[in-house]
């Protein structure tokens, strides 16, 4: 039920007692401001950590060869390990459905040119599965296909920024670019959430690169994703198995850590997830602490406010105010001041986050912001807090005998 007269009384009491209202509002505004900033920054930190993995599939395993550090089976230490196509085939075929996607990579660096524009780019020669591993989003044309590999076609898929750099706002698809003297047809253009560097890459079929640049079957790195149905522990034991098998395959000592390096993202992401969880819990505790401090603050101020108004309340009672009408009036005033002030603090906090958000990138804070859920939650908490903060002293004031309230001190 909306009682216009009651609200008029409340508005008058708030606006005619500006200093009092401002003081009580300030505590709440400040608490909510801190609360918003804290949560915003926590979100920003979380965004940064999540960003580290956005680029790649979370169930990735990267396998890189290195040099041996221990002598083993008659080989001396310092031997360089070289992966070849047969190793890729072995990993792909010998582990059944444990492997979801798999690709080899050959790295090259070339000066690329189109008409008068040139620039140096990293080239990745890959298998078609690479698209899923790297979360490459082809938005024009297509990705490298199995047929390309078979025919060793001279085709490339270029990043959005490569197109921007070399083609000067014209369409790259279907045109030919020159990589170290050889013409390649652009069959696709892609985006990648991993950042600018990822969009300054050129992909080509691995067979083509092996044929043209060295005429061998060398592979620089093998990436795969494990079957996502596997649990964290299963995934870990799978990468242990891979390490063991590969060490045997290349006659590497079991204790040699650098000859074959298998990196399982599950481990890294688990660590970071744990860290963000700890961080979030910490921030929630601090945030709630601030909020509670704010609520205690408003409760204290309401006690003071009601004390200051004791005489007024006594007059109102002498004129026929019922205890209920007094409690309602004070509670609603408290709710109104709390909500308005809290909302103000929230807006200022959100504004600040918006303003300084971008300059915090170097402190590992990306896009600090608060969610709608949090805003709704905070608003509800504010209203409840205001009601409680107002109720206790209002109830007490309403039960004072009018004669006590009216007595001059």
């Amino acid at each position, binding site marked *: 039920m909306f009682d216009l*007269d009651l609200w008029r009384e409340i508005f008058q009491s708030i606006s005619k007692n500006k200093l009092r209202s401002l003081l009580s509002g300030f505590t709440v505004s400040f608490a909510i401001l801190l609360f918003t900033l804290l949560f915003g920054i926590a979100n920003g930190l979380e965004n940064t950590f999540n960003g580290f993995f956005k680029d790649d599939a979370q169930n990735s395993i990267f396998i890189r060869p290195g040099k041996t550090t221990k002598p083993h089976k008659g080989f001396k230490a310092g031997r360089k390990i070289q992966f070849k196509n047969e190793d890729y085939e072995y990993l792909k075929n010998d582990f059944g459905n444990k492997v979801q996607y798999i690709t080899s990579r050959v790295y090259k660096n070339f000066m690329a040119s189109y008409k008068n524009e040139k620039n140096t780019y990293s080239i990745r020669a890959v298998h078609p599965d690479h698209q899923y591993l790297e979360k490459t989003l082809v938005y024009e044309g297509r990705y490298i296909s199995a047929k390309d590999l078979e025919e060793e076609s001279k085709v490339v898929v270029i990043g959005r920024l490569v197109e921007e750099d070399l083609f000067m706002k014209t369409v790259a698809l279907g045109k030919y670019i020159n990589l170290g003297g050889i013409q390649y047809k652009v069959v696709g253009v892609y985006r990648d959430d991993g950042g600018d560097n990822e969009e300054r890459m050129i992909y080509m079929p691995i067979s083509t690169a092996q044929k043209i640049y060295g005429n061998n079957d060398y592979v620089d790195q093998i990436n795969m994703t494990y079957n996502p149905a596997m649990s964290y522990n299963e995934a870990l034991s799978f990468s242990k198995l891979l390490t063991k098998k590969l060490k045997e395959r290349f006659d590497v000592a079991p204790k040699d850590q650098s000859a074959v390096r298998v990196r399982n993202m599950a481990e890294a992401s688990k660590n970071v997830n744990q860290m963000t969880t700890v961080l979030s819990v910490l921030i929630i505790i601090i945030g709630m602490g601030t909020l509670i401090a704010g609520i205690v603050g408003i409760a204290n101020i309401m006690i003071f406010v009601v004390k200051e108004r004791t005489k007024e309340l*006594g007059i109102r009672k002498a004129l026929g105010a*019922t205890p*209920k009408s007094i409690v309602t009036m004070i509670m609603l005033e408290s709710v109104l001041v709390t909500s308005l002030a809290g909302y103000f603090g929230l807006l200022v906090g959100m504004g600040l986050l918006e303003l300084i958000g971008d300059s915090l990138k170097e402190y590992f804070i990306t896009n600090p912001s608060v969610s709608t859920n949090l805003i709704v939650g905070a608003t509800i908490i504010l209203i409840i807090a205001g009601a409680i903060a107002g109720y206790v002293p209002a109830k007490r004031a309403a039960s004072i*005998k009018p*004669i006590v309230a009216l007595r001059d001190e």
Partner: protein
Amino acid sequence: MLEIKQLHKSYPIGDSSLHVLKGIDLSVKEGELVAIMGSSGSGKSTLLNIIGMLDEADEGSYVLDGVPIKNLNEKKAAVYRNKFLGFIFQSFNLINYKNAVENVSLPLYYQGLGRKERQEKALFHLGKVGLKDWAKHLPNELSGGQKQRVAIARALAAEPKLLLADEPTGALDTKTSYEIMDFIQELNDEGKTILIVTHEEDIANMCKRVVRLKDGVIMEDKFVNQVRAAQYV
């Protein structure tokens, strides 16, 4: 109008208690104008507050307009205060952030009247005390006499049966006091029952009946020849 029998009231002070009213018998008829006198601390205010339901008696009976006032809950007391009683205090007790007309409207707000009706009635009563032009002024922009007249307008606004005034002229100079008394006499002429607590003999003589308290009992209760205040203003 009101009937009080063997009324007792004590205040606890530390471990002991102070027996302020020790068996008051008082009966007031409709249309009376009664002055309650007595030395300071004799319990005048205490008696008036009990009559006004701002405070409760410990013992004895009190019937107001045929309604026994005993163990009233706060809500009922509020309704009676609002409907039957008008208060005028020595220190005016206006709400300082409300202007004159808003102060006068307040009892009407608690009667549940609509905004327009409140405004009209409040202005009418302000007019009766001669302050129509001061309706929009805050209490601190008014003189003591004007404040007391606003307070009287407020007490009248609810059209109470009984008007209770605790030293209404206590904070005013003689001339202003007589103006206020003139006004109170007019109200009484119109038939309103009025009880006034006062220290001053001249004010008491402007009433029709004087009740003197001493040591918690009524020492004297007599009718007097009313002195009209109009001749002094």
